[in-house]
């Protein structure tokens, strides 16, 4: 099978004098490398400039609320079962009278924790969830952490903020993560 048309046939025929002298080949090689010297560099200056990673990028987890602002999660535990890294743990609780505007289902997760050190961002929790409650955002990454106690993300950091709802648009206008200033060629 031929993959490219750039493959060269190897031959062990005797070299001509020009080839034995190395010099023409060396000059050719130098010409190739110097042409690369002036080429535009494809480097993206990572922390300053971020590339749009597409609408299916698996980043920071989010626990979605529904249109009325109620938490969707029903603490069924399917995400925890699906998780290959065993990163998710939760404590279920029953919805009390008067909490209907907080939780959509009768059972909800009082505690919902994801250990970001264990998580491998496979997205299986998102696939497993029957209530479309947990998603992995495409526009935000889990930030770098220095301390171990920053590692476990509770509901305070996972549940969606109603004022800043997360929408996954397939044809996103977002070209870089919105939380970062998108500098172009900040430092060369």
């Amino acid at each position, binding site marked *: *099978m*031929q993959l490219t048309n750039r*493959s060269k*046939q190897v*031959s062990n*025929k*005797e070299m*001509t*004098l*020009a080839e034995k*002298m190395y*010099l*023409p080949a*060396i000059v050719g*090689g*130098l010409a*190739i*490398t*110097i042409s*690369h*010297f002036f*080429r535009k*560099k*494809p*480097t993206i*200056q990572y922390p300053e400039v971020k590339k749009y990673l597409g609408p299916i990028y698996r980043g920071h987890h989010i626990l979605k609320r529904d249109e009325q602002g109620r938490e969707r999660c029903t603490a069924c535990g399917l995400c925890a079962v699906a998780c290959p890294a065993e990163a998710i743990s939760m404590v279920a609780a029953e919805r009390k009278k008067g909490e209907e505007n907080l939780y959509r289902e009768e059972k909800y997760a009082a505690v919902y924790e994801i250990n970001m050190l264990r998580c491998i961002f496979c997205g299986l929790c998102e696939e497993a969830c029957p209530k479309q409650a947990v998603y992995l955002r495409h526009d935000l990454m889990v930030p770098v952490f220095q301390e171990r106690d920053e590692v476990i993300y509770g509901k305070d950091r996972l549940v969606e903020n109603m004022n800043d709802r997360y929408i996954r648009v397939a044809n996103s206008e977002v070209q870089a993560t919105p939380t970062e200033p998108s500098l172009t060629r900040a*430092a*060369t």
Partner: protein
Amino acid sequence: MDLTVLLVKGIIILVIFGITLLIATYSTYAERKVAAFLQDRLGPNRAGPWGLLQPIADAGKMFFKEDFIPSQASKWLFILGPCLAMLTALMSSAVIPFGDSIRFDNYSIPVQGIEINIGVLYIFGVVSLGVYGIMVGGWASNNKFSLLGAIRAASQNISYEIALGLSMIAILMMTGSLSVRAIVDQQASFFEWNIFTQPLGFVIFLTCAFAECNRTPFDLPECETELVGGYHTEYSSMKLGFYLFAEYINMFVSSAFVSALYFGGFHYPFMNEVGSALERSMGAITGHNIATAIGFVVFFGKIFFFIFFFMWVRWTLPRFRYDQLMNLGWKTLIPLSILNVVITGAGLLYNFKYATWAIVIVMVLMVIVSGARAPKREAIPQQV
């Protein structure tokens, strides 16, 4: 020589010393930048603007590494190795004429560490001493890989010194002097630059300079794939830093040497016209000093080009195999340089300086003929 002359001389020496160190420092940065650009990357750009503080960061890192001496190593020789490498590297820039001369009052002081009439010999002596740094260090490490690297360095340097010397003999014959300044002065007019009179000698000299500096494609003494780290396998901290630094100083010195020997040193086309115009407009002393400064800058331009060339070659060519290295040195370069000497001598008999072009022309003809007579390679279509 009164005090002022001594003072000026001292300043010149210190400046040359400082410039050597500065250029070597920034060569490490330039090397990484050039490597990056040749490979479509950007290179270091985080430490300071455009990464300009990178060498300082590197040095800082080197200083804070553990200074380790293997228990079985011969301790004093182990320390002596890098010092020797550094010392010899720094010594060799003393005789290179960096500029014409500085005039003040009635004095005229050459811009050169020291003007001796055997400058070429001095450089040869110091350069061949340079391999002892590697030898001593490699041997004292008490490590087979280091020793192998050191042996390779020694045999490589010895082999290539012959061709280096022979290619220079042609120049010495043309100048009739061993003083580097005399050689430079002899190339005052553009078409008498030795690159035009000694094209073959230049190629041989450059190749040998690469080998003497242990630079790719001849960096077999530190060939990672075979020898772990070569002669500096056991070294850490600033001792390793000295070895690496010595390599860059050597590179600077050989670039300076190549530009002095073959590219007219501080001469540039229409230099005399510029010089006399300056002297006429600004007086004999200031004008002359400014002309010297221009020459100085031109010389450094040439040096920087060759440093760049060293790096350019390094990031283009793969390493030679050891037997290829020896074949190239002994079977190609030495006979060629002897031929070069003979032809130059024959040319000088008839006062014709450009005789060595005959070799080049003959070689080009041979290449064309052998290329034409070679059986055409048939590209066998690949099995689909």
